[in-house]
Structure formats: C-alpha cells, structure tokens
C-alpha cells in the first residue's frame, strides 16, 4: 500500500531565496502568503531557516506547538479559517532563545523531514522561506522538493 505523499495535495511550490541576509525574504514570504490568503487561496509556509526562524513571530504564532497525527506533523494553523498553515523549527525549540547549533548533515535531515513528514493537506500554494546563502539548507530543500510541483523561485534583494 503506497502512502499518499504529504505534498500530493499541494498545487504549487514556491521558493523564496536571496544570497544575502536581511533583505526581507521572510517578510516577503509572509506578505505573499497573506496576499494569497486574502484572495481566497489556501496557503502553507515552510520555514527552513533553522538558525534564524522568523516566520512564527511575523504571524504571531510563536507560542504555539506542533502536534503529531497519522500522516506526520500537523502544521500550525493561522487565522480562524485555518487559511494559512506553517511549519518552522521555531515551534520545536524548548525556549525561543535556544540556539540551533547544528552542522550541515543534521540540518539536512530535519529539512528532509519537514518536506516529507508535514501533513499539509490540500494547498493552493506552499511557500518555502529559506535562510541566506547557497548551502546545505538550499541544496537539501531543492533536492527534496524537486519530485513535486516546484513552480520556481522568487529572489529578493535590496538596491545596494
């Protein structure tokens, strides 16, 4: 019996990238998700910035916890209609100031889990927010997402 992939109900997957830190990737990811939700779409956000997860605070859900279900982890739902769902390492930390001091291989393992083990359900869009750089998180996220409906990447910069 083949299990239905957790991404089978996701129509479009979008990566938000930059090379540079602090240009507004997480801000844009959040605003993009909110804009899509306002236009009636069901949206998920996957925050793969393991060292500096910003999305939970931006959606005011930083105090929430993640639960398990049969198909894996249940994402955190935002809003009364649960129109936005979110997964971030921020929800797995015991204390918000805990540093995630992991080397690449351990980060890769969690990112793969985030991609395959979160029960997203049916989504119009899954937005994947990334940390700055072109390293482990980016390679692993693209590798894990490629077999699915990877729409493409939005790149964020500032003028300088």
């Amino acid at each position: 019996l083949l299990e239905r992939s957790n991404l089978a109900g996701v129509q479009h997957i979008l990566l938000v990238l930059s090379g540079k830190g602090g240009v507004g990737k997480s801000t844009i990811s959040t605003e993009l998700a909110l804009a899509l939700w306002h236009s009636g779409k069901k949206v998920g956000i996957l925050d793969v910035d393991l060292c500096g997860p910003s999305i939970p605070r931006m959606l005011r859900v930083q105090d929430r916890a993640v639960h398990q279900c049969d198909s894996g982890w249940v994402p955190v739902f935002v809003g009364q209609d649960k129109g936005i769902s979110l997964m971030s390492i921020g929800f797995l930390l015991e204390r918000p100031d805990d540093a995630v001091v992991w080397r690449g291989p351990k980060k890769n393992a969690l990112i793969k889990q985030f991609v395959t083990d979160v029960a997203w359900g049916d989504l119009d869009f899954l937005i994947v927010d990334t940390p700055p750089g072109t390293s482990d998180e980016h390679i692993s996220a693209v590798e894990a997402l490629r077999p699915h409906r990877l729409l493409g990447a939005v790149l964020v910069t500032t003028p300088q």
Partner: protein
Amino acid sequence: ECPGTGSAQAGRAAACQGCPNQGLCAAGAAGPDAAEAAELRERLRAVRHTVLVLSGKGGVGKSTFSAALAHGLAADEDKQVALLDIDICGPSIPKMMGLEGEQVHQSGSGWSPVYVEENLGVMSVGFLLSSPDDAVIWRGPKKNGLIKQFLRDVDWGELDYLIVDTPPGTSDEHLSVVQYLSATHIDGAVIVTTPQEVSLQDVRKEINFCHKVKLPIIGVVENMSGFVCPKCKNESQIFPPTTGGAEKMCQSLNVSLLGKVPLDPQIGKSCDRGQSFLSEAPESPATLSYKNIIQRIQEYCEQHHCQEEKMI
C-alpha cells in the same frame, strides 16, 4: 542527557547510544586533532588579538562593521591588522575593501593576504573565485575545510589584530572557526544587531551560542539605530525598537552595549564603492559612533591581554 552537538563528547558519550543523530554527531568531529592544533597554534602564534564579528541575523551590518573596525584599527600605522572573511556563500569584504578582482598569491610561506594598506591585509573566498557572480554551493564539510585552510595556510605574519567576519547563523562556519581558533585564543566576539525584535530574537540565540562554546562577548553593536534626515534634521526610527532594542536586550542578558550606529546613506555608498566610510565621511554621527565603539573594543583587548600576562 545529550552532551551537546558541539561538545567534544558529541556522538561518543554513553547517552548518545541509540540517538538517531549519533552517527552525525560523531562524524562532525570535535575539532582539530592534536597535530592540526599544533599547526594552527604555530601559524597564529604571532597574532596578539583575535575578534570575531557575529550576529544571528543576516543583513544587520557585520561585514560593514568588520570593515570599519579594520580601517579604524589600522589608522594607527604601528598596528598590523588583518581581516578574515569566512562568509563563503556571500563574501562581502572584497567589495567593501575595494579589492574586487584581486587574486591570492602563494609563496613558500603560504598564501599571501591581499593588502589594502601596508598594515591591513585581507583574506576571503571572494579572491578565489574566477568571477564575482560564481556561486559557492558547498555543504558544511567543504566550507569547514576552507576555513581551516584560511587559518592554517595564510601567512598572516605578526598581527596586532585579526578580525574574523562571519556569515549569519550558528552553524558550520561558526562552530569550525571557534574550534580551530581554540588552538590559539579568541579575545571575544562583537555581536551586531539592528533595533527590531525580528533581529533581536536571532541575536539572543547567537549570545546563547557564545555561552555554549565559551566564547567571551566583548559587547553588542546596534546598527541602523535611527536616521537623521540631512534636509530637515528630523530623527526617524526606520527600524523601531518595539521591544526596547539592543539596550533592553543587553540589560536583560547582562552583556555590554558597545554603542549605537545611526543609518547614514553614505555608509552603503562607501561599501559599494570599496572606500573606508570613516575616511569618506569623517563628520558623520555614524563615524563618531564607530570610532567610540572601536576604542572600547581596543580597550577590552588590551585589558584582556594585561590580565592574561599577569596570570602567566
């Protein structure tokens, strides 16, 4: 009880048996082995002070500050200063120091840093790329290897100050540089932030990282702290400190606030043009802030050195 993924016991402690990450932790390696440590110690023997510039957050001004610190310290021609850029994915230092297009040369005594002044040398992966747009898409272990090479193979010579600019985060680069430099000593870390909570929440993690790896914190610099309009002289908070800014954070975490640097469009311009902001805009309030902060860092390092000498 997990000994901690960065500890020497990572993957090897009794508590690690059965942990799904045991293999990864053990493979991460605790740091340089005895021979490597001896090599690094020898190479860095003539470095008097080492300062790491960190943040948890990207884009807060680590490289900008590192460049200003390097220029500020090298203003004293009797001091030998070096700036090592270990941001392998996004090396900003070559551009900021006006050294784009420069190449690294090898000699019998190792790699030669690129000199921007006689007493100010720079090393960055940027100098090893054939084109500035080449992406360095490396996983952690390869990045660690290059960082080790930078510390072991560069002929730094005698230095009063080695400044190490880092990428954002608390990962391979940070663990590695702290572990490799444990062969010599690090005076401490300067942590850079901006006033808003989204930055501070990452910076608190960085402060915890420093505590975890026993890295002393010289203090915190708050960048982009207010903007004074050159026309109407009105002050605006472009990044409002909604939770009290770095000042409140430093108070609650018992670390020094070294200073606040206001936003000045000339800073970005100088960085883009590879010029020293301190020289280009000597009258700017930001220059005054930078200089005060640099002086406090110098005082910390000198005091630390005296204390160490007393202990010998």
